[in-house]
């Protein structure tokens, strides 16, 4: 597959497409195995009346309901007025969005705890975070609007984002790219066998 990248010929494109499709199909079969594991876990909890087992009943019922509705009607995932999409919009979506929104609180408490000027490194982290925060909101303009251009929070924030940030990114990207290449190579050569459970 690696060489496909260099060969734009249509035959090569077709092979590529087929192989990708296959991985997706295999992925779906594996999902069934995953669901099996989920059911077995919760069944076990219910059967043994483990702590909090009634909640497992909630999971099982929700799973069964959603699967049945989803597979029953052919247009379940297209009809915005159907029960399936309603469950999606008013059960799944709000929980998803709210979990995400919890970050607003966590980011504040993490900043409070972690951003202490303990060492040079911690101080750099702290300063650049504070400057960028101020540089991105209107209130930063209030505070430094009287300064000449180039010295305002927004300008310094921009400088940090454009230059040191880019430098850091490039360094990590190059490292990651090489790492990915090395690991892919090991898999292709059959050297990397961790996924077989570490056995040789």
């Amino acid at each position, binding site marked *: 597959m690696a060489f496909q990248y260099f060969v734009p010929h249509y035959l090569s494109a077709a092979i590529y497409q087929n192989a990708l499709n296959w991985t997706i199909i295999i992925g779906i079969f594996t999902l069934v195995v995953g669901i099996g594991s989920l059911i077995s876990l919760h069944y076990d909890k219910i059967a043994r009346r483990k702590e909090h087992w009634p909640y497992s009943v909630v999971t099982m019922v929700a799973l069964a309901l959603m699967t049945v509705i989803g597979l029953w009607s052919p247009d379940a995932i297209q009809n915005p007025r159907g029960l399936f999409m309603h469950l999606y919009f008013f059960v799944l979506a709000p929980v998803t969005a709210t979990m995400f929104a919890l970050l607003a609180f966590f980011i504040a408490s993490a900043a409070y705890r972690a951003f202490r000027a303990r060492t040079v490194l911690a101080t750099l982290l702290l300063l650049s975070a504070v400057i960028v925060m101020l540089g991105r909101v*209107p209130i930063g303009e209030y505070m430094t609007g009287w300064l000449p251009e180039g010295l305002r929070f927004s300008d310094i924030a921009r400088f940090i984002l454009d230059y040191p*940030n880019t430098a850091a990114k490039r360094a990590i990207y190059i490292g990651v790219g090489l790492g990915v290449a090395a690991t892919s190579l090991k898999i292709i050569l059959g050297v990397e066998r961790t996924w077989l459970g570490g056995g040789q």
Partner: protein
Amino acid sequence: MAKSSFWQKVIDIDRRWIYLVIGIVTFVPILKYIGMPVAVTSEVKAVYDMIESLPPGSIVMVPMEFDPATAAELEPMSRAVLRHCFSRNLKVISTAFMIDGVVLIERDLREIAAEYGKEYGQDYVYLGYKPYMQIVLLNMGENFRKPFPRDYYGARLDELPMMFGVNNYSNISCIVNINATSGADYWINYASGRYGAKLALGVTAVMATDYYAFLQSGQIFGLIGGLKGAAEYEKLIGRNKDVANRSMDAVSVAHVFIILFIVIGNIAFFVTGRQKRL
């Protein structure tokens, strides 16, 4: 000694007080609109200028990839861009490559088109969702009809008057991709890189740092980042009271409080003599 124990308490403060403060300072400004000035940045202005410079009737592609979880940041932005396009009598083609957002985006498009009295098929087209977006993007470079023989509502593209003679990216004046996912990379690599389409991105504030590099290298001509970018765009099209501008107050106040927390934390840290390891 008394002082030191006060600061010690500050350091050991229950995190839930912090949560409470953040909750309050975010909630209150939503109810009471102050209206902080929003400075327009060059990368947002570039998108506005591009759309402003297009002659009426040009086709702009506004692919939108976000789901309910990221809609809070990207929906105001897409609404502002769509309003701008429709108000300038430009035609819009839209897609959605995030399956969770397909219905959401359809609603946005329909509502805003209705605001400007635009007709489906004549003034805008919604192609909807197809899996494997990288392949779809490549195919769209050849012909929209290849991945999307029919639009979202099941009509054949050839039946839509707006799509006559519109085959691929070269018929599009510019693309403003509003994206909450790393799919933005595909737009850069394929639509802009391979097929040379003029591309601007609207992304979440988190992603924006990543995409500044592409702005510098000229692979995208503009960048709208997060709610702040949306607020700037709203300001440019003269809609200062829309949701992004209204939210900027809360965003500002919350930032100030987080910085206050950091400052207080540091004062406490130094007063208590740095003994505390965290």
